[in-house]
């Protein structure tokens, strides 16, 4: 993917993020995503039925990378079962940390494939993934 298109996808997910809303719903598991080195502050809300992530949304304030990454992640995980989601997360993290990964299951999340070049923004891209893992562990 060319850099221009990657940037466009990120900006689009930042300006019009998927399922970014402030609401109070029952039956959703909440997890806060933040990291020590930056000021991102995202809350993730996930509804799991049986083994399936049936719905998810987020709110909070965060930078373009964190926000877009959260938006893209939510698009990719809704409707999937836990095993599929775990596999997806592992692949995403492998991409960020420069290990072998399977492009084909990452969808738009592939736009972060060069984020490793900016050390300080790796944590931005992985912020929602760290949060979703905690939610899955809670389950």
């Amino acid at each position, binding site marked *: 993917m060319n850099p221009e298109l990657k*940037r466009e996808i*990120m*900006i689009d997910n930042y300006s019009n993020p998927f399922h970014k809303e402030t609401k109070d719903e029952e039956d959703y598991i909440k997890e806060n995503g933040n990291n020590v080195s*930056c*000021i*991102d502050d995202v809350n993730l809300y996930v509804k799991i039925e049986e083994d399936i992530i049936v719905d998810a949304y987020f709110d909070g*304030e*965060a*930078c*373009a*990378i964190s*926000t*877009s990454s959260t938006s893209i992640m939510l698009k990719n995980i809704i409707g999937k079962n836990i095993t599929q989601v775990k596999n997806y997360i592992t692949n995403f993290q492998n991409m960020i940390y420069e290990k072998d990964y399977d492009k084909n299951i990452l969808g738009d999340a592939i736009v972060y494939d060069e984020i490793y070049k900016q050390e300080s*923004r790796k944590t931005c891209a992985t912020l929602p993934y760290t949060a979703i893992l905690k939610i899955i562990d809670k389950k």
Partner: protein
Amino acid sequence: MNREDFPMFKQDIIYLDNGATTFKPSVVIDKIVDYYSNYSANAHRGDYSISYKVDVEYENARRKIAKFINANLDEVVFTSGATESINIIVDGFFDNLVEPGDEIILSKSEHASNVLPWFRLANKKGARIVYAPLDTHLHITLEGIKSVITPKTKIISLAEITNVVGDLRPIKEICELAHANDIFVVVDGAQSVPHKKTDVKISDVDFLVFSGHKMCGPTGIGVLYGKKELLESVNPLILGGGMNESFDSEQEIFLKELPQRLEAGTPNIAGAIGFGAAIDYLEKIGMDYIAIYEQKLKAYLVERLMQLEHITIINEESDSGIVAFNVEDIFSQDVAYYLNKYNVCVRAGNHCAKILKSITGVKNTIRVSLYFYNTYEEIDSLIELLTDKDKIIKEMI
């Protein structure tokens, strides 16, 4: 201006985060290297010449700092920085004094270091934290302070200049008012002592804390100033070598005089000596000159920023070289990342003043904090980079 004195400026860098820390001039760096290279001995062991020289240099640094703030020599205690200094007086002095129901006046724009130690003390003693009101510019006024003083007020602890709003508090007048009501005044000088002339005799503060690294000195060294009669009652929180006169097997301890009593253990010798060199350096430039220059530079920055429609300044009325602003629709950290691509260093975030957002509604900002070595050309470069909002969005990731 003075830029050739700073090795950091050999890099192509625009440094606008002086509220966090400042660059060090060669005279400070050389002084530290000189200590480690030429008389690297411990203090208080003057049996041989290089150790004697350590004592002379260490106490010389103290003398310079005392003169710099117009204090007496035994009123200047070396600490690791402003944060430690506040903790020392909260736990070592006020812990003995504060009683249930007492009130401690702070403000919502204080740095965490001037908030959290007081929270702990208040929780422990059943005392109450009272916030002085901020006016529409987020400034503290004498009338505001008056309005929250009650017969139970025991302490007022405020930054002289705050690190986000950058307002200068009328410390002398606050001290007058406080002392007339038997209230102690603690001043956090971390953002003021580096930028303007400080005189503890004129202001009559009871305690003043500040850090060396925010004024061209090394990290890990700072000062606790206290009026002699108050410092005498500070309970040393750390015991050990260097602070005791003698002790015996009956567990009797005799402490040294001030200020050594409050400086247990091998001190940060290089830090103190380097700090002394920084003081010399600042004195040579002149604190009044620094204050005036920064004011002019700040006014220029504000004027230029106000011309940009997509920028909102949070504190255009600030009295210091601190300007906090936001670019419309762009998260502050993204702006900082963008500027970093052009080697411009600014800070994004809440700047450790986490309760301020409850008043401003603004959680995070971009903060520019100036020092005397910043230039009009640097401001021009910053403004040029901020002029085109689309460019920022395009390049921020």
